[in-house]
């Protein structure tokens, strides 16, 4: 490594990696309706006010917002979704991009609920809709015969009790049956 440019490049790369390691968490929020770029000012302002957020980037073309949190800050996905709504947009998937590696790649949770009182297909639809309204939720499945609802939640801060609350707000009884890290994609392929 005689070339001084190579040495400089490696030094810079090392510094950048060190800086990244100390940056804390990176959260990606998919925001729908971001088709009017100059409307994004309100979104930027609302999200910047969230405790723990150091900086953010709004990627209009991707329709996502990247939030850089302080290292020890808690990521409240419900609050994030609420702020996006308050800014006039629709929040979708919220996921922790970094440090996913330190979490063993298991930033997704599989949640199963027992739901009592679903007597019709309309009840099933209402429960599905309520569960889908939580931004981290995906793959929502409600089975009336088994009185059971299952979903996968991406993110690190959403409590399973929130799903129980959502279902109970509709007048049904609910309790958590299962709340465990979802299988990684690699494991699923096997």
């Amino acid at each position, binding site marked *: 490594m005689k070339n001084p440019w190579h040495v400089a490049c490696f030094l810079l790369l090392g510094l950048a990696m060190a800086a990244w390691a100390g940056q804390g968490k990176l959260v990606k929020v998919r925001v729908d309706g971001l088709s009017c*770029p*100059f409307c994004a000012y309100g979104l930027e302002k609302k999200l910047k006010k969230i405790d723990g957020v150091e900086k953010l980037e709004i990627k*209009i073309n991707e329709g996502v917002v990247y939030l850089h949190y302080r290292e020890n800050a808690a990521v409240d996905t419900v609050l994030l979704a609420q702020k996006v709504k308050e800014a006039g947009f629709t929040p979708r998937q919220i996921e922790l991009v970094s440090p996913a590696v330190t979490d063993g790649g298991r930033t997704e949770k599989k949640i199963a609920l027992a739901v009592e009182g679903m007597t019709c297909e309309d009840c099933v639809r209402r429960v599905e809709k309520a569960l889908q309204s939580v931004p981290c939720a995906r793959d929502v499945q409600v089975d009336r015969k088994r009185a059971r609802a299952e979903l996968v939640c991406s993110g690190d801060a959403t409590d399973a009790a929130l799903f129980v609350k959502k279902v109970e707000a509709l007048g049904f009884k609910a309790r958590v049956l299962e709340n465990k890290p979802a299988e990684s994609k690699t494991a699923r392929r096997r």
Partner: protein
Amino acid sequence: MTLTGRAALLAGLWILALSGGSAQAQGPPIFTDTPIMLGLEGRGLRLFLQRTDVVQRRSGDSTGSPNTSTASYRLVAGLPLQLWSPRWQVGGIVPLVLQPGSVGLPTTSGAGIGDVQAYFKVLLLQRDRRNETLRLAGRFTAKLPTGDRDARPVRGTGTTDLGASATGAWIRRRIGIYLESGFLRRGTHQGERPGHQLHVNAALGYRLVPDIYETYPSPQLNAYLEAGLQVTGRSRRSGDLLGDAGSQVLWMASGLQYIAGRRWLVEAAWQWPVWRHNPNQIMEAERNLRLGIRLLLY
């Protein structure tokens, strides 16, 4: 042209300029209203200077050759304010009527506040997808007779008018389509009630630059092509129809809008009538030129 004729021309000019505002609502695009009540349309200040060129024709129809033309100016300030969420908005529109006295009548030059409008807008529908939004809003307007009707030049219509309109927009990446339709119920002044107005506006917006919008904020240039139809009914005095036949005007407009950063944009547009039917009117707007700025205040 006699002094009386010129005074009549000026009076008509201002009535035309003031009543024309109802078809040219606030919002990006430049002449058509929008249901998107965010950013610069949410809490801000919109200012524009509008120059209206008016002609007086020998016959009532548009084929008659003009024998007098002049210009009027309005400096309009629009103040939208979000209420408890971006779904609800109130606002005010304050026009300053300017007459530079350029028509050869120095005694008629002057300036003053015109008819002030207050409005309430509510978002009725919002369907968002990635890089796409569909929204529909309703708007209620009250136009108050704050302008001096007896001043020369005339600054107000003297009537309290109430309006309701619906506006929709579909925006996907570089393209935006806007539609607006509304009705303005005119009030009565000294037993006379001008004809009610119905308008339908449409606009097509296209983001010229950047081709792909990566990271916010980024400089942006939008182009707009707009069209509208305004139908004015017959006037009444003490309940009886007057001799006028109302009017119908179909106009088009094109404009450019430059968004330099987070908190402001500048825009320029001109509007011209492509067809009109106003058999009893001798005053006609030939074109409107609008130069404006919008600032985000919060």
